[in-house]
């Protein structure tokens, strides 16, 4: 489904990603872990098409299409969803209104008729139950005055509504208490299927107790330096990242 080959990206001339290679197949959950500043969030942003990042080398294929040549909105319409680490506030625009605009543009791109108000609302009701979100929250201005937990829950709700092929969760666990973490993870797990894939970007192993990954990758200095099964995450939790840093730094020939 997703194939990243030798991806290099920089911001304002400073290289952040230095040759990422990653294959994600339908039905899989991949966790991207790593110390602060290793490039985890940059990878998520580059895949979603954030303009500040300049891709200097490499290519990314998503369902056979050259992802990097698509605009951010077309990537979304093709089925790439990014759950933001820091969801953005849009005053005066309710989640409902926002999602209706988004969903209908996605549908238009896919050659589908726009959903009428009745169908849209029944879809909302169905998805609201998934993430235990309150209707009241959805009629408030998007993310304005939301608590950290409400913002993240709202992201997962949007994900449920837009029904993406590839979901990228960028530090979705940050700022969540244990109950919110459970609700958000349950939502993500319910949305998983054989035809979709999930990339979970996280600093801590905690989230992976709930969203169990098939593969764990450690990102350090812009490269994936270690990959393994879910046990790798537990090992990292126990030993920290230092042993990997040392391993990498000692073998690095400059």
């Amino acid at each position, binding site marked *: 489904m997703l194939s990243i080959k030798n991806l290099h990206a920089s911001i304002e001339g400073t290289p952040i990603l230095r040759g990422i290679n990653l294959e994600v197949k339908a039905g899989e959950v991949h966790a991207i872990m790593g110390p602060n500043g290793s490039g985890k969030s940059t990878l998520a942003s580059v895949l979603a*098409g*954030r303009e500040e990042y300049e891709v200097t080398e490499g290519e990314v294929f998503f369902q056979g299409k050259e992802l990097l040549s698509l605009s951010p*909105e077309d*990537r979304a319409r093709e089925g790439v969803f990014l759950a933001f680490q820091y969801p953005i506030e*849009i*005053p*005066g625009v309710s989640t409902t209104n*926002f999602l209706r605009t988004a969903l209908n543009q996605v549908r238009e791109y896919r050659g589908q008729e726009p959903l009428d108000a009745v169908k849209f609302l029944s879809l909302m009701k169905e998805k609201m139950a998934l993430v235990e979100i309150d209707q009241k929250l959805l009629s408030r201005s998007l993310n304005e005055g939301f608590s950290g937990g409400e913002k993240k829950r709202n992201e997962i709700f949007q994900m449920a509504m*837009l029904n993406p092929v590839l979901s990228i969760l960028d530090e979705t666990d940050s700022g969540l208490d244990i109950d919110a973490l459970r609700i958000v993870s349950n939502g993500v797990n319910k949305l998983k299927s054989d035809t979709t894939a999930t990339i979970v970007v996280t600093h801590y192993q905690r989230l992976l107790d709930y969203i169990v990954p098939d593969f764990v990758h450690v990102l350090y200095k812009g490269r994936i330096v270690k990959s393994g099964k879910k046990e790798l995450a537990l090992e990292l939790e126990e030993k920290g990242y230092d042993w990997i840093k040392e391993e990498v730094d000692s073998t690095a020939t400059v």
Partner: protein
Amino acid sequence: MSKDNQILEDLNSKEYEHGWSVNFETDEAPLGLNEDIIRWISTKKEEPSWLLEWRLKAFKIWQGMTEPTWANVKYLKMDLQALRYYSAPKQSKKPKNINEVDPELIAIYERLGISLHEQKRLQGIAIDVVLDSVSVATTFKETLGKLGIVFCSFSEAVKEHPELIQKYLGSVIPMTDNYYAALNAAVFSDGSFCYIPKGVRCPMELSTYFRINAANTGQFERTLIVADDSSYVSYLEGCTAPQRDENQLHAAVVEIYAGAHAEVKYSTVQNWFPGDKEGKGGIYNFVTKRGICAGDHSKISWTQVETGSAITWKYPSCILKGDYSIGEFYSVAVTNNYQQADTGTKMIHIGKNTKSRIVSKGISAGKSQNSYRGQVQVMKRAHNARNFSQCDSLLMGNQCGAHTFPYIDIANPSAKVEHEATTSKIGEDQIFYCNQRGIATEDAVALIVNGYAKEVLNQLPMEFAVEAQKLLALTLEGSVG
């Protein structure tokens, strides 16, 4: 950085939609302004002598005045002697009803999306249309007449209801008020008049649609709305003009009188030609609008969506004379390219327990300048006056300006006055967030701007609100990369 440049390059790729004009025979005054022209206009309109005297008095006063320079706008002074002060479409005789109006005129309005045929107007809005200097048609007259409501052109009101005109003309905005109000008093040609009798709730929206068609012509209309005790009316005003290289002057006066327990809601969607993207042409919109809450418990509410005009100079105000009276001002002013707007309101608290509310939302893009100027004045006798003001500015790109000039003048210690102000930029973050959910950039801007202006747009009657939303999106189309 490259995105910013892109933003500016793309600015206003959309042309002004109403920029066409129509050639038809007109009845015009000679160019220039002097006593003879005023007499010419008055004769043309078969006015009574008291009105001519009133005009001439205004002209004398105007001659002694100078153009105000305090507004935060820069422009080349207009040569008022090079303008034409009267231009009317030629009709063989005055139409008695809509069926006698020149089909060509009706076609102009159809092209603007305004149908003058009553049976076609499903929304139940009575409409008076003013083309250049004269009112060409008023719909639903009979329906309204049964309730005792008078809704007609100003010229007609002078003939049919002289006692009302004499009583209220200039009672809210005296001819001495300011340079443009005095000029308007001297040369005004037509406009709308509306009278709602005691205890009557006007069953439909009343609307005036103004259009400037002729070249080198100023439009000086006058609107007078009188809401007698315990009556209610909602009034809409819309405007467009053809695209021309030279600047055109629009100096209107709107006066509103509200008796005890009366309520008047006045909404404007102003879309005069704003000039092209180099800042050439466009309407100078120098307008004086004021209402008086004369009776106790009366209410006047101004809502304006200002998207057009090269220069806007406009402060719809409320004089809160009656005890417990309420004044409101809701405004969205959008400027793009080289547009300049200096707009806001005055709330003058005279009566006891009077309340006012000001919500102003400025949106600046391109190289435009957008200023809010507002005055809240609480007089000595105005015990327990309350005011709440909120002035927000939204900037797009980095070459535009937003300014706020609030004046607060309190002479009674029991007053409670609050002022809040914010300035923000449409963030690339917000746009990226929308993009990531599949929303195209143009639509993202429209969504964000409409969300920002929501509190004001909510005040508009339904049909107008939809139009205003589209207009906001259109005005800003292409202003973000």
